[in-house]
């Protein structure tokens, strides 16, 4: 109740400020700081309020961005969100470091076959299910999103690939919130992280294929693209291993200033990946993985990460909420609901099939699929490429993808949190036992 009261007072102060100081240019650094501070506080308060209702904290952060952002009461604009975009780089690095630190070598060894099986199963079944459904929808001319004919096929293929993407950031946030550990959380995290690499590779391959088939401007062949992605992946992993080893060597000698250390590590990784054109996500995951698993006191590192990343996580998800295109949802909601439903069904089918084949316990069979429902960063990034690469019909498709991400990102974390609780994988439950 106190959090709600604090949120209302904060909003009243912010609203009065924007009302009385209307003449201040929006690009003023003062306004940027005020918005940043407001978002951090309001997201935390709203997170606490929705947390009382049993919903994930990140749902509160996302709602905060949606409520006060450009698609809500417009306390700040799309331009303000873009101006704060530099935080996303930092946040991505921290999320990836946390994801890597969550991956335990022992568990991965145990779960490796299952991880591969689920990844393959999901990429096949989700891709096939979504592509086929939307091919027929587009061909029937319903919704009038893309033209019929070859383009309907291309658009359906793209939707199929993007549907296979997950949201490791949401998974990390939910696992962190519940301090969850167990087969479901470990498998979901491992598959989400590993599969995203393949999704990006598959997407690049598909885009090259469509461009070459449709007579578009192709600068490199599909094989070259694939080769480039493989080499980028390997180099990113190598760089991550080297940085991780250096971090271990450092941490063996010094243990001071954890907050600055973690932030410094995140920005160094982010800058190196940009400078060497590496995959930031993968490189940071490797760093986190190496340090967590090969440093004697890797658990301490995990705790540092948690401390350093909380402020960034709050603002990251809040900005993500502010970026969710609610206009797109309003425009395309019937098609988006179909996309969401087909994806949900195929995620369930592909995951449960593997769980059944592996003779998993009933709890896992029932709940494992839930962690693959959230979708955010990777899908948004791929959607942007669609708009760039396929002018003319790509824009309509992007609106559909954005609208579906809105649903997936709101519903996904909630389903996953309740599933983890149902499996008894929340740290609290374990502690009580």
């Amino acid at each position: 109740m106190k959090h709600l009261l604090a949120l209302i007072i904060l909003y009243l102060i912010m609203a009065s400020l924007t009302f009385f100081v209307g003449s201040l240019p929006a690009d003023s650094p003062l306004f940027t700081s005020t918005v940043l501070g407001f978002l951090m506080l309001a997201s935390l308060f709203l997170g606490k309020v929705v947390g009382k209702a049993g919903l994930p904290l990140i749902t509160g952060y996302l709602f905060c961005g949606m409520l006060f952002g450009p698609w809500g009461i417009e306390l700040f604009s799309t331009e303000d969100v873009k101006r704060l975009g530099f935080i996303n780089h930092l946040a991505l690095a921290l999320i990836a470091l946390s994801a890597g630190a969550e991956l335990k070598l022992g568990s991965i060894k145990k779960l490796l076959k299952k991880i591969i099986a689920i990844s393959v199963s999901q990429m096949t079944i989700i891709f096939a299910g979504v592509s086929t459904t939307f091919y027929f929808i587009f061909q029937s001319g319903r919704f009038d999103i893309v033209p019929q004919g070859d383009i309907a096929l291309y658009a359906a293929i793209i939707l199929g690939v993007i549907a296979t993407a997950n949201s490791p950031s949401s998974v990390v946030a939910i696992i962190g919130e519940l301090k969850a550990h167990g087969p479901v959380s470990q498998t979901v995290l491992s598959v989400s992280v590993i599969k995203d690499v393949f999704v990006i590779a598959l997407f690049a391959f598909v885009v090259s294929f469509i461009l070459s088939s449709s007579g578009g401007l192709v600068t490199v062949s599909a094989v070259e693209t694939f080769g480039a992605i493989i080499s980028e992946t390997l180099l990113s992993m190598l760089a991550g291993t080297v940085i991780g080893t250096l971090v271990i060597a450092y941490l063996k000698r010094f243990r001071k200033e954890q907050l600055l250390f973690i932030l410094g590590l995140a920005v160094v990784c982010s800058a190196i990946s940009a400078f060497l054109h590496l995959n930031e996500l993968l490189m940071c995951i490797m760093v986190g993985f190496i340090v967590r698993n090969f440093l004697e006191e890797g658990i301490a590192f995990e705790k540092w990460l948690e401390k350093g990343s909380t402020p960034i996580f709050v603002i990251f998800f809040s900005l993500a909420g502010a970026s969710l295109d609610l206009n797109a949802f309003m425009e395309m909601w019937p098609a988006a609901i179909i996309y969401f439903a087909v994806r949900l069904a195929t995620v369930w089918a592909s995951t449960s099939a593997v769980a059944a084949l592996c003779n998993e316990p009933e709890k896992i069979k029932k709940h494992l699929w839930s962690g693959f429902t959230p979708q955010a960063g990777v899908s948004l990034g791929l959607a942007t490429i669609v708009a760039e690469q396929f002018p003319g019909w790509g824009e309509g498709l992007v609106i559909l993808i954005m609208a579906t991400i809105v649903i997936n990102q709101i519903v996904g974390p909630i389903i996953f949190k309740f599933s983890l609780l149902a499996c008894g994988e929340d740290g609290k439950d374990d502690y009580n036992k």
Partner: protein
Amino acid sequence: MLAILGLVIIITIGWLGSIYIFSKEKLPTSLRYLFFSGWEFILIGIAMGPYALDLFPLEIILQLDPLVHLGLGWVGLFIGLQLKWKDLNRLHPEHFLVTTLQSVFTGLLVAMVSWPILEHFFQINENTLPIAVTILAASAALSSPTVVFLLSRETGFKDEVIRLLQMITNLDGVISILAVGIGFTLLRPEAAGIKVLILISQPLIVGCALGYLFYLIPHKKLSENETLVVIIGFLLFSSGAGGMLQVSPLFLNMIIGIFLANSLPKNDPFYAAIINLEKPMYVVLLIISGLLFTVPGKGALLLAFAIITVRLGAKFFFISNIAPRIDPHLKFPPKTGLALASQGAMALVVGLAFLSSNPGTLAKNIFSVIVVCVMANEIIAPYLVSHVFKKAKQ
């Protein structure tokens, strides 16, 4: 992406620096004193800035503004939190008077010297001149407790004089922030007649409202990480809001700090969290100051030299000659006033507050004068404090 590169360098050096500053016992004494309070991070900032390596073009520096606002807010809040009514009541009124008057005395003398130099050597209009003088005087009037604290800890020297020095150095920042806050308000063009009262009450009302908002947050129900989110978010919000209302962020956050110091329970987790931010914030502020430094012209160098001399002379004279008249029981060893040489990050923050609210060539020049003064004072302060300690021991 450039902003990220900027952040990389600042945070990495800040992190390494904070380790280095507080653990350089292995260096020989003379060298350790030279880099005692970490002023060299200003040099590192200068080295990375537009005058040397140019790793930070202007657009990156502009994007780092939230970091400046965070620093301003943190310092204001930190100072305000020390003003707990119950603790202040325990101080001798005479000591309090000595602290206040030495600060005012130094500030006035520096203002008197700065005014003609600014008028003569700087292209400055008559509206801006009083603001610039107030900023220079406020930054010169205060002194930093770091050198006194570190040296007394290192030497194990405990004496009444150290307690007094610590009290003075902890509290004279308040006078400067007050001067900046009230100065900012009074020098606003619309400040005339009854409106002055409204303008002065504005930061007090906003500060108390924000303080109450912070008070409302159930701190004990937050995890350590969430407390950090609240503090960072709150400082950014209050500093930004203060700036938007044309109120000094430093002053506004000090009001908030005073409100909280007198309303939050002693064991509130918020105190520990804000203290934990001290070292990283200190180093980051020094580096940012170096980045924003512009090479001073002849006039600026002259002004810096005049301020350094007058400031030290004023502090020395006041403690030696005036303070004993205020409280005859005060028995300061000779030259005790010299131990107030250090200015620390506080003085830089006063300059940053000016630069942040009045970006322009004049503000950059004024800020650079403050940076030069701080560097010079930080170099000599450890030797002077050590000398005063020796005299006190005798």
